């Protein structure tokens, strides 16, 4: 099927790169999450509830790990816009997961300041240890390896973010495999965080 009868995908003229979200289980916010969303939506004029789309999608991700077609429809209904408008946002921003991800999403910064201090090798080591390429999840479903563009903490290069939220700073390539072990054993508490060193 093509959008236009004269444009055959097979002919090599036009290939749509549009990917459809997996439908997923029927999604609805838990009552507590719905209440949280309403508190955020109150920050904007009532006629501009659409401003709360990004916060709503973060809550979806917290609730079920990634964003499905069913969740997009629910968000659209709750916000009062079309599913296409929500999908537009989901497909644009790098922090929304459109496919299931592992328990820990390892997000290695790849941009210049981190790369100058060894980020490429950090990714290489993790990839080798897990036996996965960038963008893939290991067979146990524990780790997904991702590369991110500049995370804004270049003084602690190379930096690694985990699950959009936790941070590991000054990660050496030599220690990358152990980082995974520590994460598995102790969870995000094993990470350094990303805070300015404070004098005690």
């Amino acid at each position, binding site marked *: 099927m093509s959008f236009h009868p004269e444009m055959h995908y097979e002919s090599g003229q036009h290939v749509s790169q549009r990917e459809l979200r997996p439908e997923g289980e029927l999604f609805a916010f838990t009552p507590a999450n719905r209440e949280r969303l309403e508190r955020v939506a109150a*920050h904007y*004029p009532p006629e*501009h509830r*659409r*401003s*709360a*789309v*990004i*916060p709503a*999608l*973060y809550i979806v991700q917290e609730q079920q790990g990634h964003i499905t077609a069913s969740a997009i429809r629910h968000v659209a209904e709750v*916000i009062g*816009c079309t599913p296409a*408008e929500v999908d*537009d*946002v989901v497909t*644009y*921003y*790098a*922090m*929304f997961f459109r496919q299931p991800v592992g328990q820990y999403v390892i997000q290695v910064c*790849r*941009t*210049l*300041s981190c*790369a*100058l*201090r*060894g980020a*490429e*090798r950090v*990714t*290489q080591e993790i990839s080798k240890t897990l036996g996965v390429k960038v963008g893939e999840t290991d067979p146990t479903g524990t780790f997904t390896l991702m590369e*991110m*563009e*500049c*995370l*804004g*903490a*270049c*003084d*602690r*290069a190379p930096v690694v*973010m985990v699950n*959009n*939220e936790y*941070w590991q700073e000054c990660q050496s390539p030599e220690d990358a495999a152990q980082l995974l072990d520590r994460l598995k054993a102790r969870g995000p508490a094993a990470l350094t*965080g*990303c*805070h*300015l*060193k*404070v*004098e*005690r």
Partner: protein
Amino acid sequence: MEPVLTSHVREPNGYTLEAYVARGGYEGLRKALGLTPARIIDMVKASGLRGRGGAGFPTGMKWQFVPKDSPKPKYLCCNADESEPGTFKDHVLMERNPHLLLEGCLIGCYAVGAKVAYIYIRGEFAHVQRVLEAEIESARAGGYLGRNIFGSGFDCEIYVHPGAGAYEAGEESALLESLEGKRAQPRLRPPFPAVVGLYGCPTVINNVETLASVPLILTRGPEWFAGLGPEKNGGPKLYCISGHVEKPGVYEAPMTVTLRELIYGYAGGIRGGRRLKAIIPGGSSTPVVLPDQLDAQASFDGLVKAGSMLGSAGVIVMDETTCMVWAAENLLHFYRHESCGKCTPCREGTDWLYKILRRIERGEGSMRDVDLLNDVAANIGGKTLCPFGDAAVAPVLSTIQLFRAEYEAHVREGRCTCPADWRAMG
């Protein structure tokens, strides 16, 4: 110079409301509420404060563009998207001196007649967002924010709005789109946001460091502020130094400082005693300069003279082990990924530039490719709705101009001629 923006950032509880008030915090706001908005705008103009986000536009003038007689609500947006590669100053300011920013937002709102400010923070800074939200609550409890502040009749709310990973959201009109719940894509101008901004209403958009400078202008006076730096480059400035230096970090200095003082003084010189090869002085969107520009003043005007720009003051330092074709490829990977897709020259062009750079870097390029890069770049720069296009071509054009021999060596020898052990080779 005694640091004024970052003076207490290393104290354990330096970020709290109590500590901030104890060191004279919110006195700028108190003073502002006793003045007319017009007087505050005059003070900011007299201080010569220029936007710290990259463009260096005079802040007072930006505020003055907001129509006073508009019946619509007015908004202030703080640009805390901080996504320019090599930049991490707002990160430190917001986490360790949040009330300085909040006070700046409140004064800005009063000056332009806004009752709501949104701090648009990049999604990756969830840990900073939590700090800001907690400190907004303490400020409200302390009566510094909310209804009838200091009994003046001025009401003002500040909300934090998260992005979700998009460099383009740092462009001011794209930031507004994102804040409205859409893709972060730029708007056609005019109309400018000062007249038609958030929700179609008059809106001022300022960088974090810009707004954090405002309380200082109120408490210490515009003359003090202007006098800190060279003419038209006044005030304290935060520099982010990263890459091959001994002590990467955020350093505060007046804009009389030189690149040499920043790199060899503050940041402790090149790591491992190696030789300096190239500097990106103002974030990845600014042209690369050679060590012969080390004595250039790191000010808005000084770096233009040196053939580059101050930008967001993200100083990226590269030593002799750095392949400049690789560096350009790395940055074009960034721009290709972050291009919002609205303008064809940028969307298609960044992809082409990346692909050509990649084949040259792998030793699969031809001599023609070097000129092809220049040609493609010439068809992106100046041909897009926002400055992203110009930003994306800066690393390509400047590295070809300064390191053409290195590009040609890659082609001639059919391999990367400057490999390094810190890269993933092969």
